[in-house]
């Protein structure tokens, strides 16, 4: 087949699929964001942005992404390189580390609530080793940092595996010869990681980061379980508009704001980790 048309043939199914099941409903919803009282207006955006909770939820969402994603990236890279060196038990270790993949955010919220709640496992452990006499109240409005930490830990626990699997698959594709050559020249492990692994892993890094960052802006269930009403995020406000206040125009406007932030972040990552075509190794 002609190479000029081949790419279009290859992307046609996805495009068709997304047009029907995503773009069509998306346009209908997006339209709502710009309409109020029958006319086109920015009223919905003005309404959501001027709400007293908007700056707080925006700040919370961004802070959380900024705290969680770099840690996950570092952790996933560490785990991936460790697995790479492993001779025995690689399958088992990798399986254990990818377990959180199968755990929904709702379930993760429940699990971490069991740890952090007042009569939870964290207090029980501290009690068992004699650090505390009586259970301390951890997830309260007086301890915003503990709430933040609990949410961040739960997110790191739950969603690092997504990055790990992508990175492990990517590292597997790096030819062994490069490392062997590096050994011959006496490059340290750390140098090998910086000079070989990182550059050659760029496509996988890019994918892992983009997916993870987008999902980070959509965080909701874990926050709801651990933070209650203390930690409003953009997504919880969106749902509140849609389902509690029955204001779908405002909800659509919020969703578009989240979308805008996600696109901006994506573009930055794509720019920073540009992948040359066909990755010339």
């Amino acid at each position, binding site marked *: *087949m002609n190479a000029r048309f*081949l*790419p279009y043939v*290859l992307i046609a*199914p*996805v495009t068709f*699929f*997304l047009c029907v*099941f*995503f*773009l*069509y*409903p*998306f346009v209908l919803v997006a339209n709502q964001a710009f309409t109020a009282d029958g006319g086109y207006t920015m009223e919905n955006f003005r309404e959501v942005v001027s709400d007293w909770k908007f700056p707080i939820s925006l700040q919370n969402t961004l802070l959380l992404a900024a705290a969680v994603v770099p840690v996950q990236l570092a952790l996933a890279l*560490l785990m991936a390189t460790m697995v790479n060196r492993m001779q025995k038990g690689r399958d088992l*270790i*990798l*399986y*254990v*580390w990818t*377990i959180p*993949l*199968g*755990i*929904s955010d*709702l*379930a993760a919220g*429940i699990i971490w609530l*069991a*740890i952090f709640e007042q*009569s939870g496992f964290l*207090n029980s452990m501290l009690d068992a080793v004699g650090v505390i006499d009586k*259970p301390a109240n951890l997830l309260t409005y007086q301890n915003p940092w503990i709430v933040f930490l609990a949410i961040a830990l739960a997110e790191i626990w739950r969603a690092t595996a*997504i990055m790990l*699997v*992508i990175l492990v*698959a*990517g590292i*597997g*594709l*790096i030819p062994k010869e490069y490392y062997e050559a590096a*050994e011959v020249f006496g*490059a*340290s*492990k750390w140098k090998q990681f910086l000079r070989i692994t990182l550059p050659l892993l760029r*496509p996988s890094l*890019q*994918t892992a980061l983009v*997916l993870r960052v*987008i*999902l980070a802006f*959509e965080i909701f269930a874990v926050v709801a379980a651990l933070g209650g009403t203390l930690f409003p995020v953009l997504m919880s406000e969106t749902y509140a508009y*849609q389902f509690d206040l029955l204001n779908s125009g405002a909800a659509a406007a919020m*969703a578009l704001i989240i*979308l805008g932030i996600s696109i901006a972040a994506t573009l930055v990552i*794509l720019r920073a980790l540009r*992948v040359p*075509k*066909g*990755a010339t190794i």
Partner: protein
Amino acid sequence: MTAVATPDARKAGRWLYVTSVVLLCAWVIVPLYFLLINTLSAPEDVQSYPKAFFPAFDMGSLSFFVTFNGMIDALLNSIMVAGLTMILSIAIGAPAGYALSRFDFRGKELFRLLILLTRAFPLPLLALPLAVMFIRTGLDDTIIGLALVHTTLAIPFAVLITFSLFSGIPMELEEAAWTLGCTRLTAFTKVVLPLILPGIAASAIFAFVISWNEVFAAAVLTIENRTLTAFLLVKLSEAPIHLKFAGGFILVLPALIFIFAVRKYLFAMWGIANR
């Protein structure tokens, strides 16, 4: 440096390495173990303090769910929807991933943006127009209908993961195959495909898990043919705490078994990729 490392330094490095592996495993497993303890505790113990660190093997909470009407049907539905989602998203997504990594074409950036947009927009807001469409076309309350929506959610993963993997395979490899008499297709099936099979498996797992854990669309788009997640979570969100844990456990378990079952394919990459 490896050549000059003293035995002591090596020993210390080895020790550090093993400790970190063990710690990271514990980091993943311990919270799950807590879930297991709570699942297997009597209701009073779930609310007690301090918590026991060993399960009491009280099956009350679990057996409550086992006697639930429709659990088995819901489980089957979940598996069918997730299986279909897996197949659809790979079949549709992988070609696009290949196209993205191998060709420069007009509208490429636009296409990538479309893929990402899909993931960055909250699904619950799209559920209403989708449901209207489904009711009108008769897709409503069918396994396929739900699988189509879940595929939409899984496709960005499928496309992007396959894209990054294809990008990791040098173009020269394919070109070499062409010069050896392969057509574009046979070069692909004989040279490239085996290399990225693990990656395909990875995105298949993503697709399965995404579908398995999705609640909102499932709760809106199915009524008689509930998936297990929709079936349980609707009831769970306000259930007493001990049932929440048991239900959470029931949700987690099949996904774990699934990942365990396919781990061979996921990690088979070691045999192939160690070129």
